[in-house]
């Protein structure tokens, strides 16, 4: 069984953390991963920096810009991850923009993911139809899951199709906006969570965008299999003090 499936079978209230590869320093990618696993994160999404990230707010944008300046690229990231499976056990997801992968080559990318032990991929600007027509077979061949984002505006039929055609988890964006931590759930968001839950999807679902503390994490877990924290964590990485101590206390404070 793949690591993503296993995780969702074994655990509830999954805490998934997003951070940008090569930020704050080029060599931080894997050490951060190790600290995250030790601190109790369940799943990690490693962002491949891109200079024009249409789905990301200022915090993640800035981290990407810094990472690119530091010299991060998909090639460097795969080098850094070469030995990762001797260091961490949790499922790993890569998240990036389509052009980076397109340039690397879809087949080469999927093969490399499989080789280093990356379990899934999120490409937020890959249209679902293009995925079905041109990408799915290749990723399936290498056993790499594709994870798609849905929003409050995504129609039921599309959500069901994503559920039917993919096998990682469903990434529920909690508001139709760019990433960035905000407070509190609105009636609109609650109605959206409700709507998705009533579809009885086969895949588990995680809720992301706007979660940044224990209260929002706990609250979110009521409506899905867990939560994704991005901007709040990336912001922390940019703060002063001991990086790894900061990460440990952050994860602890989220989990409560």
């Amino acid at each position, binding site marked *: 069984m793949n690591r993503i499936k296993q995780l969702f079978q074994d655990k509830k209230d999954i805490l998934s953390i997003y951070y940008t590869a090569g930020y704050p320093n080029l060599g931080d990618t894997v050490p951060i991963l190790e600290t995250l696993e030790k601190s109790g994160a369940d799943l990690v999404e490693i962002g491949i920096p891109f200079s*024009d990230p*249409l789905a990301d707010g200022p915090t993640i944008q800035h981290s990407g810009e810094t990472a690119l300046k530091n010299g991060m690229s998909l090639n460097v990231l795969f080098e850094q991850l070469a030995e990762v499976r001797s260091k961490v056990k949790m499922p790993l997801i890569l998240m990036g923009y389509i052009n980076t992968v397109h340039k690397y080559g879809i087949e080469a990318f999927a093969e490399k993911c499989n080789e280093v032990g990356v379990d899934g991929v999120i490409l937020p*600007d890959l249209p679902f139809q293009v995925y079905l027509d041109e990408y799915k077979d290749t990723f399936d061949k290498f056993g790499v899951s594709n994870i798609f984002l849905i929003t409050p505006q995504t129609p039921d039929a599309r959500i069901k199709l994503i559920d039917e055609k993919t096998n990682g988890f469903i990434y529920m964006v909690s508001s*139709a906006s760019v990433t960035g931590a905000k407070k509190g759930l609105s009636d609109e968001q609650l109605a959206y969570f409700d709507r998705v839950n009533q579809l009885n999807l086969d895949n588990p679902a995680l809720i992301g965008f706007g979660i940044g503390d224990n209260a929002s994490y706990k609250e979110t877990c009521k409506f899905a299999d867990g939560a994704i924290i991005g901007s709040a964590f990336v912001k922390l990485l940019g703060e002063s003090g001991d990086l790894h101590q900061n990460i440990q206390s952050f994860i602890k404070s989220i989990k409560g």
Partner: protein
Amino acid sequence: MEKVDKALLDASVMPDKNGFFGEYGGRFVPPMLEPLMQEITDAYQKIKDDPVFKEELLYLQKHYTGRPSPLFYAKNLTNKLGGAKIYLKREDLNHTGAHKINHCLGEALLAKKMGKKKLIAETGAGQHGVALATAAALVGLECDIYMGEVDIKKEHPNVVRMGILGAKVIPATHGLKTLKEAVDAAFEAYLKDPVNQLYAIGSVVGPHPFPMMVRDFQSIVGVEAKEQILEAEGKAPDNVVACVGGGSNAIGIFSAFLDDESVKIHGIEPAGTSFKTGEHAATLSLGKPGMIHGFKCYLLQDENGEPAPVNTVASGLDYPGVGPQHSYLKDIKRVNYDSITDKEAIDAFFELSRYEGIIPALESAHAVAYAIKIAADLPKDQTIVVNLSGRGDKDIDYVVEKYGNDYGL
């Protein structure tokens, strides 16, 4: 253009329903943007054949913009070169001084019909920003324009004009601080309030429906030019030339001639100071297919898929991507895409000014330079129609400061 079904060159069947021109275009956007793009597509499809909308737009084109723009025979330049006859499609005479007003009026009317309160957009040279600020003032909408910090300094008069027109100019401060970054900033702002805002992108780029919609609004240039050259010469032109940044003025004039194989069509990109990465913006000449800002096109990019830095004297051409229809027209070899250096463009800028009394925009000077380059070798009974996409008032300080010495200033 062997093997190409002629029907595919017909604007009414390109792009397909998902916005693809062959493999290019489409909608490579995160799911937050997808329904917004669909909303604009639906609204545009509904409105475009509506007689009331068409009449409103027609009235404004005629009495506000000053259409039809003249087709002027550049006799002095022609005689000096001693070859093909050069005609200029005078988009520089439009209200606001460039072709950009053509799609801005359309986009502003659409926004108004959709019940939006604010138009937002990016701008490079400031021409699209000025045109959109103008259209916004006219139809009664607020307007925010995102502009790279570098361009704000370079295109000062246009920044002032936007302010006078009541628009807010917001600097894009990341990366190279030019057009690409302005597009990033505009998308980001758009996602913050998609209900009240409409993103009126400045060229035939971005996710579907923009490459289609902006082309449709610009196609009037070609329709007029075709009629005018027929009247002047009794036959279709032998050559049509336009500069290509994103490609809106070019596709506007090309679209009327695509299905006439006797017309040679030339799209001219900026070769900058050299073909070294970072010193040009010749996307179709040197790029490789990729995705940027929500669509697939030829893209200048490095080996990691990062959009490459670009540079040219013409801020409005300073973009690492290009319209998807141009990408398609390159592949099927219907259009010849070539490039002109900064130096050649500056020469043409002065040449047109001094032979015809017309100061062209630096963008348009690229098209003029190409016409100058090919005219002498063509027979005298042949014609070249150049889309003179804009006037050069915005560029005069920059040109004189940087190049004045070489031209006795």
